């Protein structure tokens, strides 16, 4: 079962909820995995401290041009929608940063002057978490986009292929925002857990997120972080109207912020927080069953 943890706004506590929920579920005896799909800035590893035992490159096929065979027909440039290959001044110019690796130029080249070679744009890593309680450890997966590359969704697609099957509770940490990277991950969800905060920015981004998850027809639950810092009543009313139940909340707390800042699992360090996530887990699992 795939539980996708999402938020429109960044920094609302998505990763905190994902890693702690995975940890608590593992302690409660569930078969669990954690998948970090925020491939631009994956941070789950800071809290789960995985031992990585497998690393698989994410590759895009990029065109390479043999000018000896080129007859200057310009078909490669015509089919490319990304401006990544052009024929100018009797030369074919390739711009790897713009290339999406669709293979169009390679397919239309009438003389076989274009071949394709893989270029590494990221990596998929897998391993197991390394906490000191054996019952609290579980498989860990993350995608990492190489700096300077733009193929975020390609890394996500390869990562999605690694997600364990339905017998495991997979906690998937999505990218912030509402565009392609977030939607690709949300498509895989059995349930989407929205992490939000009761601030104007938080609520504005939450609205956009709920709209897209509704379009995907996925069931939703909400978790409110720092519920006591802003306009909780307004947030509650809005979620009620949208029929998205609030399945848990945490207050603003310096203690939590400090543990988080040092990369510690708040659910492991604080008993009362463990209980908050245990309750959240119960609600998530009963929602999936229902």
């Amino acid at each position, binding site marked *: 079962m795939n539980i996708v943890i999402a938020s*429109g*706004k*960044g*920094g*609302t506590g998505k*990763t905190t909820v994902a890693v702690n929920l995975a940890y608590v579920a593992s302690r409660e005896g569930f078969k669990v995995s954690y998948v970090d799909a*925020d491939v*631009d*800035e994956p*941070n789950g590893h*800071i809290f789960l401290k995985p031992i990585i035992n497998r690393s698989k490159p994410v590759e895009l*096929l990029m065109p390479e041009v043999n000018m000896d065979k080129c007859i200057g027909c310009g078909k490669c440039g015509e*089919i490319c*929608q*990304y401006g990544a290959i052009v024929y100018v001044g009797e030369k074919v110019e390739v711009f790897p940063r713009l290339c*999406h*690796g*669709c*293979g*169009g130029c390679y*397919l*239309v080249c009438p003389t076989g002057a274009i071949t394709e070679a893989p270029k590494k744009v990221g990596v998929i890593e897998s391993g197991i978490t390394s906490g000191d309680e054996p019952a609290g450890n579980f498989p860990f997966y993350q995608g990492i*986009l190489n*700096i*300077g*590359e*733009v193929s*975020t*969704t390609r890394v996500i*697609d390869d990562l999605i292929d690694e997600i364990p099957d339905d017998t495991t509770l997979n906690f998937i940490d999505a*990218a*912030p*925002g*509402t*565009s*392609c*990277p*977030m*939607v*690709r991950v949300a*498509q895989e969800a059995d349930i989407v857990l929205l992490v939000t905060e009761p*601030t*104007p*920015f938080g609520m*504005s*981004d939450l609205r*956009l997120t709920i*709209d*897209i998850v509704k*379009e995907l027809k996925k069931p939703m639950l909400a978790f409110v972080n720092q519920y006591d*810092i*802003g*306009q909780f009543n307004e947030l509650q009313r809005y979620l009620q109207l949208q029929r998205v139940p609030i399945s848990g909340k945490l207050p603003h707390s*310096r203690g939590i*912020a*400090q543990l*988080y*800042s*040092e*990369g510690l699992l708040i659910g492991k360090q604080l008993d009362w927080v463990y209980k908050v996530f245990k309750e959240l887990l119960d609600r998530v699992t009963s929602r999936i069953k229902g």
Partner: protein
Amino acid sequence: MKELVVLSGKGGTGKTSIVASFSVLAKDVVTADCDVDAPDLNIIFDATNEMEDNFYGMKKARIMPGHCIACGKCEEICRYGAIYFDGPGNGRYPKTYRVEPLNCEGCGLCAYFCAENAIEFKENLSGKLYFGKSRLGNLVHARLFAGEENSGKLVAKVRERAKAVAERENIPLIITDAPPGVGCPVISSITGADYALIVAEPTLSGLHDCERVHQLLNSFGVPSGVVVNKADIAPKISRKIEDWAKDNEVTFFGELPYDPDVTLAQIEKKAVVEYKDTEVAEEIKKLWEKLRQIL
């Protein structure tokens, strides 16, 4: 004309609140919100009577079920897994192929190679660009429709528009609020900017993301400095970021304190420096002075 870009890698470090305050302090400025996925600056700017432009991103393919002969060529060549064999039947074939728009990256190969000309490949309205004036000056922002591709291209449009406004009205400065992450829209936000301010938070996640975003800035040749927001939440890690900055020859602009007034200002739709004379407002003013001199 100078362009300052404010970014953070990690979301939620306080970037947007700081940008709004800079816009107040700079006075003669065009502000560009490049977080086209989840734009928030307009909540503070509260601009009315804005103009809007349509944004056409990548073209998108659509299979016309009546013409499809279910040969499967499109599915074979699509590298994005966007073609599904679950389209409606058409009398001759019980099922046809279908393009899932959320997965389509707009390469157009399916349309090009379809022997039956059964695939349309058309312009696709994928967002809106807004621009106008408010009490905080000119704001350009945009909204990419949910699930759409090509936020990088829309970001480029936002910056183009901001430059055009600045040129027309003879405004010497553009402040750009970049989206989180290090991918396409972030790259599009930083290329050619004069200076970048990284807003970090004092957490190991914040430091990790700050390092990645700094690598990105370096590879695009944009000089940068870092400020730690909410520093007093974890002074030890704030010091770690300071050490990291020294080791990497990144200008360290010091620290901003955590202050609940930042959220209260947001609720009042005000920039932090407009809201109250707080310590954090004072520190933002000092930070702005330093940046102004660099620019």
